[in-house]
């Protein structure tokens, strides 16, 4: 294998894992856009949705039937969490919100362990096995599949944000809840909708990555760190940014691990943290984000 082919192979690996990070970053961006909060429990909600899908498939349902059922359950579950857990602390300071989502993270993780145990489960691969050789570089069908699904979700979110009235409403809510309420918007419902949609996008992410990572309660914990890096890099309010950010983080991490000897595989996990720090220092709104403007 030539050096160039090797490099390309590593890039493909990076794009593959980057797409995984992007899928969860989309959910993070969505909920941030809707509700203005950063949800640390997003990965765990995605994980538990994946367990729902696994349970349905394990009880004999076909994958393609289990998927919409899972998405619906996740949507309802997300809305329910907003109503029961988040609404009571809605007006609390941001730190309270962070702590509540961290608490949710721990609770959901433990609950999944209690119900399904911590042993690894196999999750059906929706995409065909195998892949193709492109000039010596092997690309799995599943990599294509994940990228395609992520692109579609990204497109849908973009349309939702920019070209629908609900998108406008939710931007108003995220921007200034008090004014939004005064102009007749049912803020509570919009927030519930935001949580529901984010949980649904998270479920898609979980179902996409489970065949590769193997399903267990800590499956999304590691992914979440990278997804945060992706969302920070791309901008916390931009779906396009989340995907570009995810791919950049994935490729940077893989190449750094493979070619920078000092980093190696040991320090690979440091790469997203360096990215987060650098972005926050240089361009806090991210590549595609809009800087928050405060009226003086």
């Amino acid at each position, binding site marked *: *294998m030539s050096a160039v082919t*090797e490099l390309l*192979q*590593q890039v493909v*690996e*990076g794009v*593959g*894992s980057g797409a*995984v990070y992007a899928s969860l970053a989309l959910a993070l961006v969505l909920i941030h856009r809707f509700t203005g909060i950063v949800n640390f429990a997003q990965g765990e909600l995605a994980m538990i949705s994946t367990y729902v899908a696994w349970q349905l498939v394990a009880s004999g349902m076909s994958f393609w039937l289990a998927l919409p059922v899972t998405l619906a359950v996740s949507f309802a579950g997300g809305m329910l969490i907003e109503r029961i857990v988040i609404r009571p602390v809605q007006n609390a300071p941001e730190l309270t919100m962070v702590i509540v989502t961290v608490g949710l993270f721990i609770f959901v993780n*433990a609950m999944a*362990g*209690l119900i399904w*145990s*911590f*042993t*690894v*489960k*196999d999750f059906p691969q929706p995409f065909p*096995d195998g892949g193709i050789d492109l000039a010596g570089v*092997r690309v*799995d069908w599943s990599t294509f599949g994940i990228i395609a699904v992520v692109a579609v979700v990204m497109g849908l979110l973009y349309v939702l944000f920019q070209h629908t009235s609900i998108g406008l409403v939710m931007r108003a809510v995220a921007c200034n809840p008090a004014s939004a309420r005064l102009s007749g918007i049912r803020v509570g419902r919009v927030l519930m909708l935001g949580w529901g949609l984010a949980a649904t996008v998270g479920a898609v992410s979980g179902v996409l*990555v489970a065949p*590769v*990572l*193997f399903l*267990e*309660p*800590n*499956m*999304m*914990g*590691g*992914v979440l*760190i*990278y997804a945060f890096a992706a969302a920070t890099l791309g901008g916390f309010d931009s779906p396009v940014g989340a995907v570009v950010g995810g791919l950049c983080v994935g490729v940077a*991490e*893989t190449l750094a*691990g*493979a070619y920078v000897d000092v980093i*190696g*595989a*040991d320090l*690979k*996990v440091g790469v997203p943290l360096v990215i987060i720090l650098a972005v926050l220092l240089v361009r806090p709104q991210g590549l595609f984000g809009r800087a928050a403007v405060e009226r003086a």
Partner: protein
Amino acid sequence: MRKTTTLRAAAAASAALLLATACNSQRGQDDKDAAADGACQGQQTTGITDRTIKLGGIYPLSGPASAYGTISKGVSAYFKHVNDKGGIDGRTVVFTVRDDGYQPPKAVEEARRLVEQEKVFAVFQTLGTPSTAAVWDYLDKRKVPQPFVATGASVWGTDDNHPWTTGWQPNYIAEARVYAKYLKEEKPKAKVAVLHQNDDFGKDLLGGFKAAVAGSGIKVVAEESYEVTDPSVSAQMTSLARSRADVLLNITTPKFGSQALAADAKNTRWNPLHIVNNVSSSATVLKPVGFKNVQGVVSATYFKDPADPQWADDAEMKTYRDALRKYAPDSDPANQFNAYGWAAASSLHKALDAMKCPTREGLRDAVRNLKDVEVDMLLPGVTLSTGPADAFPIETMQLMRFEGERWQLFGKPVDTRKEFGPLAK
């Protein structure tokens, strides 16, 4: 006169109170009545009487490592089975299980509770290297035996400062030696790629392997590590594939074991001989990958696998299965962790039988003075041997290869003590 008596009584009472407080504040001291007489004079008899032995164990019944928690069920079932047959030397075993959730601080708390409140005779098994390392100083200070810990770190056997702690299962270095010997015979010019967890466990096994192949034609040509917090090892596997090595040594814990096996199966352009370490050799790791994808994978073991039909008519296996059905009906007899617990408990039984004094000191000495003791749940040819300076009871393993839907043993049991000599301290 009367006044004096009252005064005396008051003084005595306050002295008693003071004493109680003193005892309470330095809970380190043992009860005066808990010492033996005769030849065993002065030795500790806490937790042991003519009729009972109190033992405690600390396992992760909850949390990320809770899959191992079922080991305690195998242990409990063994002791209940023995109790029904008259106990150990007439003594009924009372086995108390505590949950540490695989968290070392919790393990310390539970160890204190077992020693100071339950007043156990010995802490039989703490599970996992972190939890065991967290409690062994305490138990050593309190002179409480900690026999047969459920972890393979080599430190339990090579350390001179903790005479009360001993290992049980083959340590990771011994396991590495088994693979090294196999490769020396089968592929003397092997180029080996290694995937390992970046912690003491991974480094123990990798270090042991490198030392064991030193000076032979076998070369480690690529090494990749991962952190337990990494989402996946696929990038590491791609890097390893570049090495074109003809052997892959997979030193991982279960989830990453599954990922690495799946990544190897998926890569049709690189087909090394895949050796997966014992930690990740259970069916719970292989099944999610798909049995068809793990054919020919090699590993090593030392006790009888209850899922292996080869032992279907084995007397001990039958006893085990009946006992589990009777005393732990909610657990699966085919799960090897239950059999592991059974084998460890049965090993402790032998050590208790061998005690010269029914005291903590007696157990400590018996555990370190085992000579080719046979345990029926261990593989034929695998026995327990220890010495005053050797706290590794099992250092023999047998290789196995995955064929069809289960592991098939092959070759002869490898006694790494004979082949490679004792471990360096």
